[in-house]
């Protein structure tokens, strides 16, 4: 069961929007499509919904083939039984909240009493109880978003699709709704596809993340696995790694390696280099895996796997301090330190030390 997508391709005129992707979504799981603007996330999702006819490929939803390029099967959108929350919400302005939400049930031909019950239930669920008869056109952004969600939930869809549903909301509301969405998802166990280019949203919501670029899948995996072991520098960057540097491997084996930074020849101990013959390599390290301590004046060569530098930004994030440290020509490190009371400030000389296993060596994307 769940959803299987095989070799999906879709182009518009000359531009290839989706270039042969495979996706597997298990029952009740949320898959997040993550990638930069224009990489084909929306298009992939619209193909699953049936709003876009793919050029070729194969899509199965809960065991039913809804699209097959070879046999020409293409189940129309209104027969796919999918729910979708549009980025623009697509709330019908001439209808009330109740009429918006009851629409899918109306289309299914559900009895009026049942409709009232189910709409009431779902409005309660999304926190809009009692708003049934409000006109839809003057709702706030957050309310519209909830109406859109309710409208999709009420039909108990086989799959629920989200196209950047939170991107039009302010940050607090976004955080709030993100948590709510995760709650709802784990509670209701609806198979979902969620499109975003915000890595925090992706990590917080996903059971599985698929990182896309230029119509292709770069890497997929569960959020923790992916976050800890990005396969390439591009994936690392999407996932919020700010410390990514090009390197050459000087020497190494299965236990670890020594790398030399291309920008300035700095040498550090790092994790094992990937097998195969990648043309070019990078190292990446999470900002919270770098530890920072003040350096005595004149001490320019800290001991161990460490670098000296100067703090050029210090920003208090509540539970952490965020620092930027310039360590050399075209080389700036980002550091998250739990020690908020350390008193390190702008202009301080500091040493950054990194455990070799945290300095991951990755293939560099072409």
């Amino acid at each position, binding site marked *: 069961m769940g959803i299987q997508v095989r070799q999906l391709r879709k182009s518009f005129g000359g531009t290839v929007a989706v270039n042969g992707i495979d996706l597997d979504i298990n029952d009740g799981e949320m898959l997040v499509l993550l990638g930069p603007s224009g990489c084909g996330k929306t298009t992939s999702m619209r193909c699953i*919904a*049936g*709003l876009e006819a793919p050029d070729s490929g194969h899509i199965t939803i809960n065991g039913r083939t809804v699209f097959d390029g070879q046999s020409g099967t293409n189940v*129309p*959108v*209104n*027969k*796919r*039984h*999918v*729910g*979708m929350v*549009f980025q*623009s*919400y*697509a*709330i*019908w*302005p*001439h209808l009330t909240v109740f009429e918006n939400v009851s*629409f*899918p049930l109306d*289309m*299914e031909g559900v009895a009026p009493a049942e409709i009232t019950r189910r709409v009431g239930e779902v409005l309660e669920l999304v926190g809009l109880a009692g708003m049934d008869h409000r006109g839809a*056109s*003057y709702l706030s952004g957050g309310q*519209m978003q909830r109406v*859109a969600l309710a*409208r*999709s939930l009420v*039909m108990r869809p086989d799959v629920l699709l989200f196209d950047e549903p939170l991107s039009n909301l302010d940050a607090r509301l976004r955080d709030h709704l993100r948590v709510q969405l995760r709650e709802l998802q784990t509670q209701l166990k609806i198979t979902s596809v969620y499109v975003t280019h915000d890595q925090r949203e992706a990590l917080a919501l996903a059971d599985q993340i698929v990182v896309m670029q230029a119509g292709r899948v770069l890497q997929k995996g569960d959020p923790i696995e992916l976050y800890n072991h990005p396969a390439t520098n591009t994936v690392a960057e999407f996932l919020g790694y700010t410390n990514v540097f090009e390197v050459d491997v000087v020497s190494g084996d299965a236990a670890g390696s020594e790398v030399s930074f291309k920008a300035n020849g700095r040498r550090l101990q790092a994790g094992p280099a990937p097998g195969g013959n990648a043309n070019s390599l990078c190292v990446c390290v999470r900002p919270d895996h770098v530890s920072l301590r003040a350096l005595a004046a004149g001490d320019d060569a800290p001991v161990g796997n460490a670098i000296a530098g100067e703090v050029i930004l210090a920003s208090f994030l509540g539970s952490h301090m965020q620092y930027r440290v310039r360590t050399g020509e075209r080389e700036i490190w980002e550091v998250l330190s739990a020690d908020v009371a350390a008193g390190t400030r702008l202009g301080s000389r500091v040493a950054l030390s990194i455990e070799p296993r945290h300095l991951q060596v990755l293939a560099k994307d072409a």
Partner: protein
Amino acid sequence: MAVLGILIVLPFLTLVYASFITAAPFSGNETAWTWQNYTGIWNEQMLEAVTNTLIVSFGGTTMAMGIGGLLAWLAARTDVPGKALVHLAGLMPLFLSLIVAALAWSLLGSGRSGYLNIILASLGFSFRIDMQTVAGIAFVHGLYYVPFPFLYIYSALTLIHPDMEEAAGIHGANLARTLGRITFPLVRPAVAGSGLLLLVLMAEEFPVPQILGGPRGIETLSIHIFNLMRQVPAATGHASAVCIVLTALVGALVVVQRRMLAGRDYRTVTGKGLQARVLPLGIWRWPAFCFVLLYIFVAMGLPLLALLQGAFRSTLFIPDIASLVDPSQFSTKHMRAILTDATVYKSLANSLIAAGATALVGGLLYFVLSYVVHRTDLPGRKTLEFLANLPLALPALVMGLGILWIWANIPLPVYGTLAVLVIAYMGRFTPQGFRAISASIVQIHDDLEQAAMVAGATRFRAVKRIVWPLMRSGVAAAFIVLFVLGMRELTASLFLFTTDTRVLSIVIYEQYENGGWSAVASLSLVYTLILIALTVAGRRWMRANV
């Protein structure tokens, strides 16, 4: 497709055919293929007609766009006093059929007996107004084509998200620059669209140049065509060839407009309610208001006064200004004669039926057409769109002629009934109806409809439950416009009416040709009052039900 074929393509093909043969098409006369029609038309008269056409079209368009754009902006975006009046000003000329407008201005400003000239003379001015000139024709065009740009630009302006203008203000633009850099570019499709429409409509306009220019022998292309057709024997081939030349010209204009607007998505509405912002005019409030009043007075007040004069005077002779207000000169005899004339009632009924049928059947047809063109990817929709715009390039005279040649020779009981008029009107007003309805369809974001389909609605139900209700006011407005256009139609009817199917405008035109000015004025007055009553009733109904 087939419907459009019959309504539009067939008359056009008939015309093309007619332009390559020596006799009238389907007339049963001996005929042969020829190029003569195209080589024979380029005489001095033709060149003068082309020049005149260009002058009245460009002059009239410039004036109508200026007035209409200004009114639309005042109504949509400013705190001008009397908003309702501004709206009224923008739409009012629709009440006045162009034939009536031309007749009224001919009463006002032709020669020494024009009312305005009598007044000027009495006041001791040596300056005289002469409407029976190319400039006069352009002026009347400019005055009465205002509703087109007004409607287009007004709706485009109200759809601009106020944030966009405010953002420009925030980024340092003053009012003039916001207007120039943001507002105007955003309404450019509306401006270009209505401007092109006006150029073309004026180029093929018939009653105004005929009534104002006719007595002096001034010809525009459409008059030239009409006169070619009126010659004995009728120069059908030459007339058709002139039409084809005009069609080619206009087609080129349409292509230019397409190029200009290609690849831009101006949809700014996503289903969120907009609170339009109002711009304080400051000291310009009252001058703006006076401009509106002046326009109303010149476009409606003067002609209506002129018609009242003409209708209720016992004699046409007016020696001086005093006799314009002398009660002993007035009588209701002409009006009584009109109101007791059975042919007037018959023609009124004909007009109502023909216009009503056009609005209903046509409105539905144009809706389907717009939907297919803008919301589906069916093959051939580009062709459909092209066909829908084709009548723009077909002068009404010629459509009338093409339809006459077709239906008079087909053994179906259509010719001689009102149905043939409805066919002509539906064909003729396809561009207006299609554009009006398309404009409201494209403002509805695809997502709204797609959300309904995702929610399980078939396409038909999505249209019925979502698209149609959202467009209702747009469609209703289009219905009313179509109805009024149908009521005003004269040109295509000229070839198609029979004694039993005379419409009101035809009766007036016949009276004019017979020189019965008192009857013309009385009838025009009645006609105008009916149009006003219908439009007001239509808007009431719209406000109550939509």
